[in-house]
């Protein structure tokens, strides 16, 4: 039973001159529980929009979106928010740690929206999670006192603290140097495997994408599967010194129509 299923998902936004912009076009995607999927694409290809739809932050214009066999488009706003809080963990490119709060308080924050035992034990759970990402000694550090890699590890701990069933990582290494990015990605891959959460990584870095078991490419709003021969680096080739260029190779962009502006 798939964890996430998108069928014919489109996203269109109106423009100022009554025209519309197609951001996603007929996207079909299935993510099984516990699997690691990567989606690569250039800037402006619709990656973040797709991630927002997967994370229940945005709704598709047309098409259907099932999460654990529940049609989420039928859910009311509050129910979607709660489902997102319980089932989805986010990792952002810019970490988005809350300033003025310690690493521990940052990791505790998602648990403020939990209920029952998880809410009342939030401090212990957060400390345990920071220990897991190797930051047990930095619990009281403020974000600005942490390195980029440490901040992203805090963000990983924060995304996992509610035991989500899927982690959505948007350019998780985009703000890190190659070596730190590789370390962070290994940690993310390991820890999501340990917890059994599915990991969807959206990136334009082929080395990062190469860690995933299944690969997709997104170009001009069209999602297509990219096989092993697509030029994506496999897990064993994620060596910082040999990292591929940041812009995906042309082979990743099949003959999809360009973004159309329709009046």
């Amino acid at each position, binding site marked *: 039973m798939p964890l996430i299923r998108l069928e014919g998902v489109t996203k269109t936004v109106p423009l100022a001159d009554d025209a519309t912009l197609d951001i996603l076009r007929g996207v079909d995607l299935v993510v099984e529980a516990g699997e690691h999927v990567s989606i690569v694409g250039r800037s402006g290809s619709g990656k*973040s929009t797709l991630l*927002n739809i997967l*994370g229940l*932050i*945005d709704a598709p214009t047309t098409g259907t979106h099932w999460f654990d066999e529940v049609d989420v488009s039928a859910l009311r*706003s*509050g129910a979607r*928010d*709660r*489902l*997102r*809080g*319980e089932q989805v963990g*986010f990792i*952002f490119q810019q970490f*988005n740690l*809350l*300033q*003025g*709060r310690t690493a521990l*308080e940052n990791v505790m*924050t*998602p648990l*403020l*929206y*939990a*209920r*029952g035992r998880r*809410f*009342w034990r939030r401090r212990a759970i957060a400390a345990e999670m920071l220990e897991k990402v190797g930051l047990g000694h930095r619990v009281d550090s403020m974000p600005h006192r942490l390195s980029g890699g440490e901040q992203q590890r805090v963000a990983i701990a924060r995304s996992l603290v*509610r035991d989500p069933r899927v982690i959505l990582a948007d350019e998780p290494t985009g703000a890190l140097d190659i070596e730190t990015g590789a370390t962070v990605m290994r940690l993310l891959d390991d820890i999501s495997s340990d917890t059994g959460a599915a990991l969807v990584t959206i990136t334009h870095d082929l080395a990062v994408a190469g860690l995933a078991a299944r690969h997709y490419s997104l170009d001009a709003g069209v999602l297509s599967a990219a096989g092993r021969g697509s030029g994506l680096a496999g897990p064993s080739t994620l060596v910082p010194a040999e990292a591929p260029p940041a812009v995906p190779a042309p082979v990743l962009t099949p003959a999809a129509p360009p973004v159309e502006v329709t009046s």
Partner: protein
Amino acid sequence: MSGLLSGVVGAVVEAWAELRVNKLRVLLSLIGVAVAVAALTAVVGLGSLAEQSTRESSEKSGGRPATYTVSAYSQGATELDPVLLDDEFRETMSRYEITWASENLYTTRSVQLPGGLTDVSAQVVDPEYGEMHRVAMVEGSWFVAGDEQRMAPAVVVNESLWDTLGRPPVASHPTLLLSGTDSVTGVVVGVTAAQYAEEAPGLFMLPSTGLDLAPLSQGGFTETPQYEMWLPTSAGDELSAMVQGNLTAALGDEVQVDVARSDYAAYAGDSDPFLPIKLIIAGVGVLVLLLGGLGLVNIALVTVRQRIREIGVRRSFGATAPRVFFSVMLESVAGTVVAGAVGVMVAVLVVQNSTVQGFIAQGSVDDLPPFPITAALLGLGSATLIGAVAGVLPALVAVRVKVIDAIRY
């Protein structure tokens, strides 16, 4: 139920953390509210002091509610005998068990002063008059029961007459020569506080028995006193009518007996005589609070715009729109409640300060009112209300934050 509890506690924790993280901003925005609440509460507190001062001042001249003045005069050929009137009045008081009653004769007495024999205003009263009119003393004491037995009559002088006498210590039993048809040496037992500046010299005496001290300058004019009764407000009208009926019956048809209420509350009817003062005070307070609230809204709106990314991140963790609204509101309310409590404390310190009290009361208040609880509650209530009102706008802005835009902000 557990979800509701964790939701409420979570929102409070969130709001408190936000206040803690933004201590300086919160402090700055709340200073205005604290000052406004302190001003409102202090103005209401001082207003109650001023009201008490005005009340006591009114009571000093007209008596406390409900004071009734009893006067009688003859409509026939023969003059009313003051001794008969006095006897009948006192008997009536005794019959109706009215303990707070006093003669009140406004007259003059000739007093031997350093500059010669001088007519000064005098009031002949019973000892009860002191309590009934809140007579305040600056030296010595008011008349006490038994003073009427003194061979040398007790005299209470006002501060102006005391000054003329050279402010002799009352403990040294200074004397005054009172001259009329009869003459007697009175002993000054107390000095009353001046009720207003430039008060003319005057004195109080107890009703004298067997002595005619009316100044010769009055040319044998008979002094007919008035009387006063201090009655319970609820039963005053009924009781005073009975007193009037009783005296009319006792003094005969030729004598007209008038009983009329004379305290300040009688003139106001059912309306509150201090309403104008209260309205002015409340108006000033509300204006001050509105200004504080406007400052708070201003800062809160700017702040919430700076927090758009944080709000977006929280939404991505599952914070629902009502939860974000409640949290932002709660920050405002929690902050203003603390500011309100500080403001009320400052107001209490100001209002209860003896220098401030002296300035407002101008020495004319005997019963200093305690700090009015209503003022404290009003201050706290207003702070909470202004927090809620000032929190609505930023909370609405926070709810309208688009998560996608906020995260990329």
